[in-house]
């Protein structure tokens, strides 16, 4: 649906319902990915800036499980880079379906 109330009206929707549908169908360039963590794909969390990123817990857990707790702790600061590679593909966030 195009991002305009006119599109909603042409679809036969009027008033508040048309407005809500029109706005819900909008995807302007300024729209970012997430407002809540559950808006993000599995294994990712929402940042305060509104983008999804690898969940710190998930990457830390993966490192800890794979390389021992000491190595995992040492590598935590670097988890963004290392964790991406270590993130198991099938691991899902608890809120994902």
């Amino acid at each position: 649906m195009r991002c305009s109330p006119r599109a909603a009206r042409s679809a036969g929707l009027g008033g508040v319902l048309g407005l809500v549908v029109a706005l819900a169908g909008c995807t302007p360039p300024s729209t970012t990915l997430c407002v809540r963590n559950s808006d993000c794909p599995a294994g990712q969390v929402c940042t305060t800036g509104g983008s999804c990123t690898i969940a710190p817990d998930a990457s830390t857990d993966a490192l800890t499980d794979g390389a021992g707790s000491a190595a995992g702790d040492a590598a935590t600061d670097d988890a963004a880079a290392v964790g991406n590679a270590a993130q198991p593909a099938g691991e899902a966030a608890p809120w994902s379906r």
Partner: protein
Amino acid sequence: MRPAPRLLRVLRLGVPLLAWCAARSAVASPAADPLWQLELHAGYGLTFGGIASQVRWRSTPLTLTAIAAIAVIDDPAIAGYGGLVVETLDRNAAGAVFGVELHPRGSRLHFAGGGVYVVAPYTLWGATASTGACFHAVPAVALCGDVQLTAFVAGSDLPDGTAATQIQLVLGMVFDAL
């Protein structure tokens, strides 16, 4: 003396009209407010969030709610409610809602305010406020439309230091239980 044809015509049209209006009025304004009501709602709309310089928005999940309301004060007509809430469509989560409803006498409008607590698989605490109107389709069942504002202020589903506010159009069915 024969009644005038015009009078007959008025009676022929007017009596059924009056009967329909009387029945309609009785349906729209039941003589006594029910003690218990069961309500089913479905809400969908927009959610806003982020910090001041980076406010963003997107569509909300579909929010399904099933609640029971019990009248606690007769005048003004105030009911307390509680029930279950489910977020679905692009995620699955469940929680509870609770609050109070005000039903002004002689009006189809109602107002509600309360809280929402999403329990699993993530947590969310929020406050809700809504207003809308109901129309009785049959004596014990009403169809309702509401605009609901919800502010989520805490919980594991929110990025640190942010809140999420959602505005939803809510369609509902209300059953007078007792």
